[in-house]
């Protein structure tokens, strides 16, 4: 097994161009499990956990860039303004896992249960890919995450990070698991309100082959808030029945399967409950702010 230890991103990309079989190794929290159990024997590894270019974030022209190498712990300590992302990061594994695991690794693994992924989907994030010579390629999240554990990453590329337009409005991430900590989601949901565009955006995890959005539920919720006058006046009441109907429509967007962690029926039910709660929390947050 060849081990590459580049010091800069440029060096790493040159190695990737020369040795495309080299598997990037970030936090190792997914990859080392496979290696320890002999389920993966890559011909080469490319250590990227120390590359400074991947461990950054920045704001430019109303857009936010999150480096692929940021760990969940770093997000928790530094990015409080993105509450759904912080909530998702806090729900990952344990302190030991959060100190190593990265959003880039979550994208690379592309598990339908990856906790950062519904958040990126609800933010409408673009995934930024980079190859030798600094060539970048930007893909909307749904064109990057193309199936269970499948991405459209090319052999000579690395994930540089994710980028999205910063919006105004409340949001949350919530997750159902078989216990309180250290669990893979049975169902997860991220809801974000965009006050300026008057949009409600909802993404679901663990209930389909990859992360899903719920466009009908989104349009319905935006319409309900409009009809109630709630976009203009956060204190305007939104009928309880509309919240229920929103939950139904969120559940209808799920494409769950039965597995060891839960039945499809339970997962659908969980989406209904998570959806209704997330919208009512967001409405309550708006009222509090005013």
């Amino acid at each position, binding site marked *: *097994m*060849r*081990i590459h*230890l580049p010091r800069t991103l440029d060096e790493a990309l040159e190695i990737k161009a020369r040795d495309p079989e080299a598997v990037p*190794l970030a*936090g*190792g*929290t997914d990859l*080392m*499990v496979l*290696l*320890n*159990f002999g389920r993966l*024997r890559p011909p080469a*590894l490319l*250590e990227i*956990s*120390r590359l400074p270019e991947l461990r950054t974030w920045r704001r430019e022209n109303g857009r936010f860039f999150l480096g692929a190498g940021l760990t969940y*712990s770093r997000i928790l300590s530094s990015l409080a303004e993105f509450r759904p992302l912080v909530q998702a990061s806090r729900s990952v*594994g*344990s*302190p*030991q*896992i959060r*100190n*190593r695991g990265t959003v880039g690794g979550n994208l690379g693994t592309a598990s339908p249960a990856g906790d950062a992924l519904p958040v990126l989907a609800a933010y409408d994030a673009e995934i930024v890919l980079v190859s030798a010579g600094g060539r970048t390629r930007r893909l909307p999240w749904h064109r990057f995450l193309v199936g269970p554990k499948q991405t459209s990453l090319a052999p000579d590329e690395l994930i540089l990070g994710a980028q999205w337009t910063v919006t105004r409005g409340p949001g949350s991430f919530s997750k159902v698991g078989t216990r*309180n*900590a*250290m669990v893979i989601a049975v169902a997860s949901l991220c809801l974000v309100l965009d006050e300026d565009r008057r949009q409600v955006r909802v993404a679901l995890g663990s209930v389909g082959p990859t992360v899903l959005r719920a466009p009908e539920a989104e349009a319905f919720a935006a319409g309900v808030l409009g009809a109630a006058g709630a976009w203009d006046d956060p204190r305007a009441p939104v009928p309880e029945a509309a919240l229920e109907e929103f939950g139904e429509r969120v559940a209808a967007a799920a494409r769950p399967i039965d597995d060891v962690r839960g039945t499809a029926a339970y997962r659908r039910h969980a989406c209904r409950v998570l959806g209704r709660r997330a919208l009512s929390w967001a409405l309550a947050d708006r009222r509090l702010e005013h």
Partner: protein
Amino acid sequence: MLVRLKVNGEWREADVWPGASLLFLLRESLGLVGSKNACEQGECGSCSVWLDGELVCACLVHAAQAHEREVRTVEALAQGPRLHPVQEAFLEAGAVQCGFCTPGLIVAVVDLLERDPTPGEPTIREALAGNLCRCTGYAKIIDAVKLAAQKMAAP
């Protein structure tokens, strides 16, 4: 693959298989067997060590990822015959039974108390969520953390 790293304050070298984890390097090459190998999948926390000051599962760190970096293990905690207050507290509270999970838990508790000297119970539970114990039922472990916090606060 030759890896050079600073372990408990001392630079060491080890020649390991290129697929080896930091845990393997510590135990098999350096003879530091305090960190335990139980699951090798990040689930049990019994291999917890610090890598450049951060609490990690040594089984999930590739040995090469520790090259030219600093590792601190459970072996660094006792000063000669004098135990670390967290180690004392575990003994006094009866938080040790078979002892397999204990080194990992001690490291995780020291990490917690270095960041938060007076943690409440929810904070303790969250901090120890990555450490499994088959024997104690956790109540005495939580008692031990509270006792250790008192010991460390005492002048």
